[in-house]
């Protein structure tokens, strides 16, 4: 091979006459394969690189036409489960649950309000909407869902003391009553006020019993009315006869009238 190269170099005539190997001759020309600079590619090679470029796949339906995929939030957070359980217990154990809008108050006012409500056995609970909403949507309290929007608190109590609660809340302008669920009955703000105006349960029960017992109490007097009337008439008649007859014995006529009963 070196002999052939020397022959090709020294020959001034046509190189193909003396065994000219193009592979070896082409190596002498230009730079080596690996260079520090970007070596210029042969045009054919450039065309080859252009033809064999990567073409990305495109979906049949453009993604902007499809609805966006909503990834469901994972609920394996134990803290979330605990809070949900607490909310369920609250709804189960308490008779009165009032939902109020809560605007930011000074902390001492919050403490005072909680104290006054505690005196009437009403507890104040701060809840997060993102926990309460799923719990409510799956229970029977679906209609309370529109209330749980924006910042709110729950006033819960095992007894139904709406009057005292309203009195306390009247003194606190930052907490506004939105609605309540008393004894599984959903009431609006107006409904709660009407409920508060009602007499207490014992008094209304007594009234109801009195109203129901009114008619039966009159039954015995109704039944005895006829005979009592007759007795009264006969007594009057006797008195008239006694007043008319002064010396005659009045025994047989009272005996006859008493035997007639």
């Amino acid at each position, binding site marked *: 091979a070196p002999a052939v190269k020397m022959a090709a170099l020294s020959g001034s005539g046509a190189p193909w006459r003396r065994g000219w190997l193009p592979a070896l001759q082409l190596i002498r020309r230009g730079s080596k*394969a690996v260079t520090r600079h970007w070596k210029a590619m042969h045009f054919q090679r450039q065309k*080859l690189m252009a033809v064999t470029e*990567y*073409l990305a796949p495109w979906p049949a339906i453009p993604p902007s036409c499809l609805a966006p995929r909503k990834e469901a939030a994972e609920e394996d957070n134990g*803290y979330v489960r605990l809070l949900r359980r607490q909310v369920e217990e609250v709804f189960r154990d308490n008779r009165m649950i009032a939902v109020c809008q809560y605007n930011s108050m000074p902390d001492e006012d919050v403490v005072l309000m909680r104290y006054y409500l505690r005196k009437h056995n009403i507890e104040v609970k701060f809840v997060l*909407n993102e926990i309460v909403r799923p719990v409510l949507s799956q229970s029977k309290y679906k209609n309370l869902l529109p209330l749980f929007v*924006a910042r709110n608190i729950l006033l819960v109590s095992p007894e139904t003391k709406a009057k005292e609660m309203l009195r306390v809340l009247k003194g606190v302008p930052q907490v506004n009553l939105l609605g309540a669920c008393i004894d599984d009955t959903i009431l609006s703000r107006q409904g709660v006020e009407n409920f508060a105006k009602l007499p207490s349960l014992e008094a209304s029960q007594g009234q109801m019993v009195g109203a129901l017992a009114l008619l039966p109490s009159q039954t015995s007097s109704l039944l005895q009315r006829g005979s009592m009337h007759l007795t009264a008439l006969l007594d009057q008649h006797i008195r008239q006869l006694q007043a008319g007859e002064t010396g005659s014995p009045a025994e047989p006529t009272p005996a006859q009238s008493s035997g007639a009963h």
Partner: protein
Amino acid sequence: RPRSESSLCSPGPGGVAVPRAGLKKYVLPPDYSGITFPEKTKLKFMDKVPAVPKVRREPRQLRDIRGPSREATDFIQGQYGILALGGGYLHWGHFEMIRLTIGRSMDPKSMFAIWRVPAPYKPVTRKSLGHRMGGGKGPIDHYVTAVKSGRLVVEVGGHCEFGEVKPFLTQVARKLPFPAIPISRDGLQQMRQEEEEKRLNNQNPWTFERIVTANMLGMRKYVSPYDLHLKGRYWGKFFLKHRV
């Protein structure tokens, strides 16, 4: 991270929805259980000249720069590292720069770093300045290490996150003579997966590999025999990342 609830309480006419914070989701701290620290956490000092300096001057052999790397392509001990995306030679100045920058930026108690390249072993000759061509090969000037694309240069690990390590690794990577990026184990795996996916879902029926192996249109005249296994992704010392 607080979540705003403006989607629930959409404002009515003339109102503004104030975003509120929702429940805070606590993130568990990372688990560093399976990490073993080497004896010396800092990078070892690399010699300029090997212990037994070479007597015989070696030919240039630029093929140790060309093509993909066959060694040190995967992580050994550390979790993060610098990946070379091109071929090149690292000399003692680069080694010192890497050693000092990483040594300065990392905490030796909670992090460690290891070399994935050997000390300079390849002699490079230089002729003295201002002489004409000829007169034989020049004397050995310095030693270098050859690095091919796809090789890890350093590995960093320990009780640290990628975000902590990335700034100084990018700083080092920018100063290297070849393109390099900081990368983690997951990042490397993802990169390989993406390359594989690209290769599989390429819509172009004509690939470099197919045309050259079948010698379509006589392309082998204009293409090196090395391109049969380099497959158009490598050109000289450069690695063409965008090609399939």
